[in-house]
């Protein structure tokens, strides 16, 4: 059973009974022999949760992967701690005590302004974009069965950036940047997958075709920026390096709507995803409609990438690092979608915090921080002995 379905069901259960997982297990009606059987047959490393809804006869039960649950919990705690640090630290540091009152509008006026007006929106944008990149990366890696196939590496980020920049500098099209970023992400994905159609998505050729597509779109971005007046070019600059400094409000709103949708769909797909890690023959033999599911996974990944790029620009390496952390923490049985989202958000928040704090008067764009951290990681994945090469 995949982690996320389990967590979602568990949340419903918690709301209903107000219990923790273990309590739910103990408080089952003892009269049902069925329940005891399921509880007893929980495989090693899982919790089996069973409960009854209202007057329904058949009990519901769900398996929770213990390690995956703990990993998600750990990442969530890490994210909360990082968020607290994010709100506290900065060019003018706040006392840790002052942050929580300032969040609800109490305390020093300056602190309230700093937290509510400046840092909180940026923190939210970081969490949203990080989670979107993380989920998109995890989906794409599973789809291509290749841990290097993240949207940033196979050129989808660059495509979205090129189109977003085109709409910012007004190339005759007055569509909003998020919409154009989506179009660009779709175009780049179609190109990469179309070019790789002969060789399949396995192996490194697919990735190098993606690098080629990305190089073309990167050049197009430069071309567009070279054509316009310097002020317009400066307005479009954040999109080229990846920064949370100038976030368009509309794009953040759109991402805030799109991320739950995409994440929900991804969670709904987790079961299919964990089957898709096998070969197509095995997956369809187990009852999966492979090509249909593949389109759905690709669509979600492209949607999330496009929306996230329209907020923060190409910070694609988060899509590599986030799922990598999630995978090493959680169990290998399922595809860690939720853990990827949390890890992506955590990486993004930490990277932006580092970018704001390290060279304090100067702010390092978050794209550069992730590139400096993620580059060596990528090299290490490529060059280490090929024992666990595929995701």
């Amino acid at each position: 059973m995949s982690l996320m379905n389990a967590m979602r069901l568990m949340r419903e259960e918690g709301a209903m009974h107000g219990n923790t997982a273990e309590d739910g297990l103990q408080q089952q009606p003892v009269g049902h022999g069925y329940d005891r059987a399921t509880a007893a047959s929980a495989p090693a490393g899982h919790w089996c949760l069973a409960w009854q809804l209202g007057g329904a006869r058949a009990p519901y039960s769900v398996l929770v992967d213990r390690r995956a649950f703990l990993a998600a919990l750990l990442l969530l705690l890490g994210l909360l701690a990082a968020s607290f640090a994010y709100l506290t630290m900065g060019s003018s540091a706040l006392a840790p005590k002052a942050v929580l009152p300032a969040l609800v509008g109490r305390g020093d006026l300056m602190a309230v302004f700093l937290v509510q007006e400046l840092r909180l929106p940026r923190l939210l944008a970081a969490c949203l974009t990080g989670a979107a990149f993380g989920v998109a990366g995890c989906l794409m890696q599973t789809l291509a069965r290749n841990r290097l196939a993240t949207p940033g590496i196979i050129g989808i980020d660059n495509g979205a950036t090129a189109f977003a920049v085109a709409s910012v500098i007004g190339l005759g099209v007055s569509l909003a940047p998020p919409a154009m970023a989506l179009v660009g992400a779709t175009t780049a994905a179609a190109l990469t997958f179309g070019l790789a159609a002969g060789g399949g998505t396995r192996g490194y050729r697919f990735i190098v075709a993606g690098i080629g597509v990305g190089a073309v779109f990167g050049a197009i971005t430069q071309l567009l920026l070279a054509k316009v007046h310097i002020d317009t070019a400066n307005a479009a600059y954040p999109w080229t390096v990846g920064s949370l400094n100038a976030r368009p409000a509309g794009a953040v709103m759109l991402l805030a709507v799109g991320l739950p949708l995409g994440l929900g769909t991804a969670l709904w797909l987790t079961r299919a995803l964990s089957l898709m890690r096998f070969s197509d023959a095995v997956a369809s033999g187990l009852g999966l409609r492979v090509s249909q599911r593949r389109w759905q996974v690709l669509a979600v990944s492209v949607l999330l990438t496009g929306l996230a790029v329209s907020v923060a620009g190409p910070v694609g390496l988060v899509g590599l690092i986030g799922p990598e952390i999630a995978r090493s923490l959680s169990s290998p049985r399922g595809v860690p979608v939720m853990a990827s989202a949390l890890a992506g958000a955590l990486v993004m928040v930490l990277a932006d915090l580092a970018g704001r704090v390290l060279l304090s008067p100067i702010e390092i764009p978050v794209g550069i921080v992730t590139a400096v951290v993620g580059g060596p990681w990528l090299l290490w994945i490529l060059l280490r002995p090929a024992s666990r090469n595929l995701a």
Partner: protein
Amino acid sequence: MYAARPSGLFQARRLSARLAGLLALLVLVCLASLLWGAGDVGPARAWAAITGQGDAEAQFVVGSLRLPRTLVGLVVGLALGVAGALLQAVTRNPLAEPGLLGVSAGAAFAVAVALVLGATATTMRIGVAQLGAMVGCLCVLGVARVSGAGNDPVRLVLAGAALTGLLLSLTSLLLLFDQRAADEIRFWIVGSLAGRRLEHLLAILPSLLLAGAIVLAVARPLAALSLGERVASGLGHRPGLIRLLVIVAVALLVGAATATAGPLAFVGLVVPFAARALAGPDIRRTLWLCLPLGPLMVITADIVSRLLVAPSELPLGVLTALCGAPVLVAVVRARRMPTL
């Protein structure tokens, strides 16, 4: 022996015919580069200036702006094309390219470090860039010798792309520190031939001559090396020494080209690719064809970069990427990856 001879002669004749055709094309392109530009000195006025008449403005534009630029394009294209062919031969990988594998990025990073540390002189920059290119080359070959990665051409390119991304972001990080260095480097880092003067050319000439001498000495052993390391040592060559010499030559060439024109990606991929298509896989023949093909590509791209967005100019690196990325995809898509 007798049977082989006429065919070899025939091949040599065909090669020299192609070489002559390419040289003629190169002369035409150089002329076009003198005639057309982003400014308002049109072809007619420029022609008058070339033939010795014409007004002062046209003579200035042609003589002091377009001529040095064309010459710089000639030298840079030559260096990058030859460096690409050498690197591909020594790694036996059709995708090995100084720009893709991080050699140019290494040179750019070294220049950025030097600028931040306070260097300004042009000659200093060349040495530093060559040092950085050398380090980049050693990284590439180190990676290629890690078990597994060397046998898979595509994996090497991926590692190079990762290295390039890392070095470029480190470079921009350095430039954040230092506004002066950022201003000095901004127009150089995207790759362009604009505003280069003849002094720059003279400064890189000695190292180019040295690299040329190395290439002449090493071409024959390199062709033997393409048959495999054992065959090469059986034929009396020393693979380790050859490899070292080639790396030195590549570093000299790429460092000089990068110091002059900024990091230009994909030239070293496209040029040997075209040369192999024209002359077959023998490095001794492809090197000859790379000589006119490299400048041909760079100068053509430069002309287009001047004309495309007319009063302003496009970075040259953009155009080489636009030409080169499709070639990269085509090579990768080829059903059977050619190994060198």
